[in-house]
């Protein structure tokens, strides 16, 4: 009869189900063998010396990437209008064909082709076809690996976004940035390890569920960061107080707390809480500096498209992402598109106006980010991921207009930097882009690839909850996409 020790579950169960509240005998010894559990376990057992759960941890294996910048194209950008060139669709506009699709409009067996409204040209040494939507980004194709054969479990925004962010269509699971900071901590403890920046038009649907740490402690959820004003909630001391007076206050607080702690010196939580005030104080100084882009040259700001009103906002966020990554932030997610409908890439009505807008806002900033990282020799260990929760159908959604419905049977994402091979296209969709046909990838293969590049073994990075060793890539696991690695 199996009782103890199956995958060491007993101990983890104990740690996690007790909310890391109380731990067993000889705990610290056990934990040392198991690097992924130490930080949280000591956060509250009151015995082991406290360490910031976000302090850096050793990866499972040598890492190719230190940080991730996930450019999330919310709403679902169309693959056949951007990077997945379908020459046979040209000249077919309006033709009714048999094709199986599944989107918000349900299952359909036929539809009216919407010919892509943009021309494609070849770029770079690799000769990649890119549509006119991305004239700047197209010049970077030799640094990019495109995955054209992505699939997801849902073509409905709510569940599909959860899947892209957390690997599951059910709400309540930790998202990728949480997994990464749980596994690796963050190099700079004075800044949050996992940062999300939103489109000025609003958050995505389901809001905070998209950057939630689910059943993991709140330590691992994202911090929303703004590119203007006070970057982090409650970061700035009240003006009427000011930093100097706050220092006086904190010194006084510390002396009270030390007095309280003296007869309770065995309880490390009390020391931890004292230390957390110092960390907070340092964060107050560090974060505004990190977001102060006035120190960036005109040329840099121009590179990111910040001189153009259209791309200024996303450009600023991309530049900010570089500054954060430079300072050791582990995972940055930027949303292009917010709120509803045409405020994001969800082009149900008119492909042209929608994609011209969103591509126009992001093309130059993203190209600028890649070039800038490259110039600074940072691209090699910064992994950039671009994509949305799904792609779009080859056919029209409604009787009129060029709008396309959602498509999770096949779509494109791309990655660059962080040990990813440039100038590569992996996987294919059929000639209409209606579904992936070769080298079919699932969202979890993409997750697996990201974890792998960060030096985390996707099959080993697990968190015990609800009777199960949960993994970002699912309990069964998923191999990384080896062929796009350099």
């Amino acid at each position, binding site marked *: 009869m*199996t009782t103890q020790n*199956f995958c060491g*579950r007993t101990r983890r*169960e104990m740690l996690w*189900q*007790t909310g890391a*509240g*109380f*731990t*067993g005998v000889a705990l610290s010894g056990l934990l040392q063998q198991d690097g992924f559990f130490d930080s949280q376990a000591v*956060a509250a057992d009151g015995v082991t010396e406290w360490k910031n759960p976000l302090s850096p941890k050793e990866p499972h294996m040598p890492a190719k990437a230190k940080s991730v910048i996930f450019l999330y194209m919310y709403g679902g950008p169309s693959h056949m209008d951007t990077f997945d060139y379908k020459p046979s669709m040209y000249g077919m506009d309006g033709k009714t064909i048999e094709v199986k699709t599944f989107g918000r409009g349900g299952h359909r067996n036929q539809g009216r082709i919407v010919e892509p409204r943009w021309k494609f040209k070849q770029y770079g040494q690799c000769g990649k076809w890119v549509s006119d939507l991305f004239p700047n980004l197209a010049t970077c194709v030799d640094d990019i690996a495109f995955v054209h054969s992505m*699939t997801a*479990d849902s073509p*409905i925004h709510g*569940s599909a976004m959860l899947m892209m962010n957390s690997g599951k269509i*059910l*709400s309540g699971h930790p998202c990728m940035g949480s997994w990464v900071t749980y596994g690796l901590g963050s190099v700079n403890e004075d800044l949050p390890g996992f940062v999300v920046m939103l489109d000025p038009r*609003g958050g995505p*649907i*389901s*809001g*905070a569920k998209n*950057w939630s740490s689910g059943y993991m*402690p*709140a*330590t691992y959820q994202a911090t929303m960061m703004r590119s203007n004003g006070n970057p982090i*909630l*409650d970061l700035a*001391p009240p003006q*009427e*107080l000011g930093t*100097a*007076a706050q220092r*006086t206050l904190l010194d*006084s607080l510390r002396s*009270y*707390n030390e007095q*309280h702690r003296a007869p*309770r010196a*065995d309880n490390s*939580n009390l020391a*931890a809480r004292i230390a*957390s005030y110092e960390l907070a104080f340092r*964060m107050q100084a560090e974060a505004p500096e990190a977001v102060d882009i006035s120190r960036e040259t005109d040329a840099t700001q121009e590179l990111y498209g910040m001189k153009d009103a259209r791309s200024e906002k996303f450009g600023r966020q991309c530049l900010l992402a570089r500054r954060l990554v430079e300072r050791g932030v582990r995972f940055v997610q930027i949303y292009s598109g917010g709120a*509803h*409908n045409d405020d994001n890439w969800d082009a149900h*009505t008119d492909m042209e106006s929608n994609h011209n807008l969103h591509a126009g806002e992001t093309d130059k900033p993203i190209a600028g980010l890649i070039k800038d990282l490259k110039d600074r020799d940072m691209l090699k260990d910064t992994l950039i991921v671009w994509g949305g929760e799904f792609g779009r159908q080859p056919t029209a959604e409604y009787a*009129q207009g060029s*709008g396309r419905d959602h498509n999770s049977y096949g779509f494109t994402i791309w990655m660059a930097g962080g040990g990813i091979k440039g100038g590569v296209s992996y996987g294919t969709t059929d000639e209409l882009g209606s579904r992936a*046909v070769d080298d*079919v990838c*699932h969202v979890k*293969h993409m997750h*697996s690839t990201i974890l792998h590049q960060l030096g985390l073994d996707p*099959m080993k990075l697990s968190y015990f909850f*609800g*009777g199960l060793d949960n993994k970002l890539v699912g309990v*069964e696991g998923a*191999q990384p996409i*080896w062929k796009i690695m350099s």
Partner: protein
Amino acid sequence: MAGNAHSDISYQVELFNPACFSFPIAMSMLNPGIRRSNMSDSLFIRRILVRIAITICVLLGRLHFPAASANAQDKAQQGQETDPVRSSTERAVEFSAEQTEHFQTEVVEILKANCLKCHAGTEPKGGLDLTQRASFLKGGDSGPAFDQADPAASLLLAAVRYEGLEMPPTGQLSPKDVEALTKWVTDGLPWPRELAKIEFEVHPGPPVVNEESKNFWSFRKVVEPPVPDSKSFTGNDVWASNEIDQFILRKLLDAGQTPSPRATPQQLIRRAYYDLTGLPPSLEAVHKFEADPSPQAWAEVIDELLESPHYGEQWGRHWLDLVRYAETNSYERDGAKPHVWRYRDYVIQSFNSDKPYDVFVREQLAGDELENSTPETIIATGYYRLGRWDDEPVDPELAYYDDLDDVLTTTGQTFLGLTINCARCHDHKIDPIPAKDYYRMLGFFVNVKRYGNRSRESVEEASITEIALPEDAGLLKAALQQFENEMAEIERQLTKIEDKVRPDFSGVEIDEFQYEENRVRLMEKREGGSLSKNEVNRYRDLSRRRTYLREHRPSGNGQALCVKEDPQSGRVSRVLLRGSPHAHGEEVTPGFPSVLSPPEVTMPEVSADAKSSGRRSVLASWITSPENPLTSRVMVNRIWQYHFGRGLVKTPSDFGFQGTRPTHPELLDWLAARFIKEGWSMKAMHRLIMTSATYQMSSAPRDDAWQKDPTNELFWRFDMRRLTAEEVRDSILWANGTLNRDSMYGPSIFTKIPREVMAGQSQPGAGWGDSPEQERARRSIYIHVKRSLLDPVLESFDIADTDQSCPVRFATTQPTQALGTLNSEFILEQAQKLAELVQEETGSDRSAQVRKAIERVTQRTATDEEVKSGVQLWDKLINEHKMNPDLARRYVCLTMLNLNEFMYID
């Protein structure tokens, strides 16, 4: 070569379904198959298909060298009898040191990491064992893995290259690994002579239900153990105050430990107040107890607290954690659950009235099926409606099962401490719970209607019912009439505005209009166009008013969120292969987990006009039976946990094989037996526990005891704890005198959520309202629980996960908490109120004000030294930082609200 336990299924998928990643099938690929014992007919057919498929593959693969392959197989078989490593024809083959080295350093690791989980042990997948060289030659159901005549054409290599067979099924191996395997195979499988077999420990497979597993400690019936004899406690017998202490002391003495002395009266009373009500005592109450801390006075304090209405708020909240209570549905719309707060009130009232636990459980599981069902017991069945609800599911059948799974998961973990949920896709890997038992349990719920089907109307149909509470019928009728009239008028006016714009809706807007949540936005888009500013404003106001009215239907009569069944649904419970709703296995009858040696289930007859099948009553009767081995153990353990910070079993929702064993098994069983004997009274259990000397021990460290038992396994002292999220917020409001604790029950309130946090929503502010200041100052349990938008103060201090049952809260320490308690608008407002309070109550003397502030947060007399430090801080803020004295007072108070002593209980 498989990397998981169900590789054969994926062959089938790859071969027969090119669109293999559509969700249901992808799901089936990813979930292990049902094994041996309960293989159903349809699974059997599938297996045959799989075999055929594999055979086709193999034949294709062999086309080149059929003879060589067959030959190799024969030889391999012969060879196996004489030499475990070399086949007979290979006798002379010798490998170089470099080759065997390569095998041992690289290949073995690849095999272990990717293949052996399935292809090793006594029953390797597909009959293919990859731990011995000879077995590579012999191969499995698909033929030899190695082709001696043409190694490069070996099946093994085809499989890892994803040509025909695709192994491992989790995705292709890295090119480096494939290359290493290729070299090894083309070298002719170099293998050191001395290595008979690669050592690999195969997981033995799911535990079976047998006499041994039925005899596991928590699956056995509770038998009341004898209480350790106090005569043996030489010298310590005076310490023990009741039976609990006798159990605890026995273990301590056996370990050479002694119990800690009683905590100070101030510590004790603060501990008791927080424990039972989640609020601190007044300084007067502390002083009174300090004057007479006798056991009798202590018992009186406990009685008083148990009578306090705030007891139900504190302990009710524990229950809400377990049932993942939330007031919205999550997903895109995250819509509000109508009337859900009545369930929260039901829980609070149940605790306050000391409702016997068995009744409490029965009402939640089957309150609608009771003979004497009442509005209260109907509200209790809101239990079934607390979970997530995807109103736009990608696969409706899957969503139906996901929702039932959510109920079964919560029911299993909460009431039984069993992770039955792990047996949804396959037999439980660690506990003796076959998948069949999961589906038998699911059989009790199959007639439950899904929460709704998209529209609000469908939710009303499936999950809402009229309840009549006994109040003045005449008044009520009038109020209801007025209510209905107003609602009708609002609807009329809204429709009028809607009708103006409906004709110009295009594509996506037509869909969107179906959801009420979207309508205001659709109207706003037309401001200045087909609608005037006035009309849009009017629409917005009317919508708000409608939302408000729905939640404020005249009380006395009203509606409740509840369970509803469709007993004529014809739904039966079937085993779902790999958990896939589209892969039906055998039909099963409702039943309880077999390892618990349950009684036979007799299902009630269902009349043609019955509203309910009565099945859930059968389940409730078994769960609440005194014979059930788990129910009372699990609940007394939870009670113990909430008193002491951790349970006797530290995994309170997992009493299975993978849970921890109780540190004090006899005590746990004794308490479980006592719980039943006392009529499942929770208050009796609180009294018993809190009057024990164990509960009253000091939390101070003692070197000798600490050295032996640093984590307090044996309860040699009481453990300190941090306040919970709700306690933090409530205590801040309590300290400054603004907590509105008298206002209990009713629709939830909305706190002020900073704009920056709202900015994360796709429609900032959507689904969050305003409450008047007085309402905002109510206790945290009344704050609206919106799954996608949590109050940041509560969230930062680790409130319960809203999506899944939360048996133990985290208690994290992080810098963002400090930022919140130093800089947030909330804390500054509260500090200001504390400043006003201390000034009002003590006048102008700074020392007196500081003293008051310290006493408000610590509930003890401040020392002169502490007062002096506070005054010094005040002076410094004025003199060095040029603050005006009033403002400085605010920051002195803010400092006090940040004290560790405020946040921690001894």
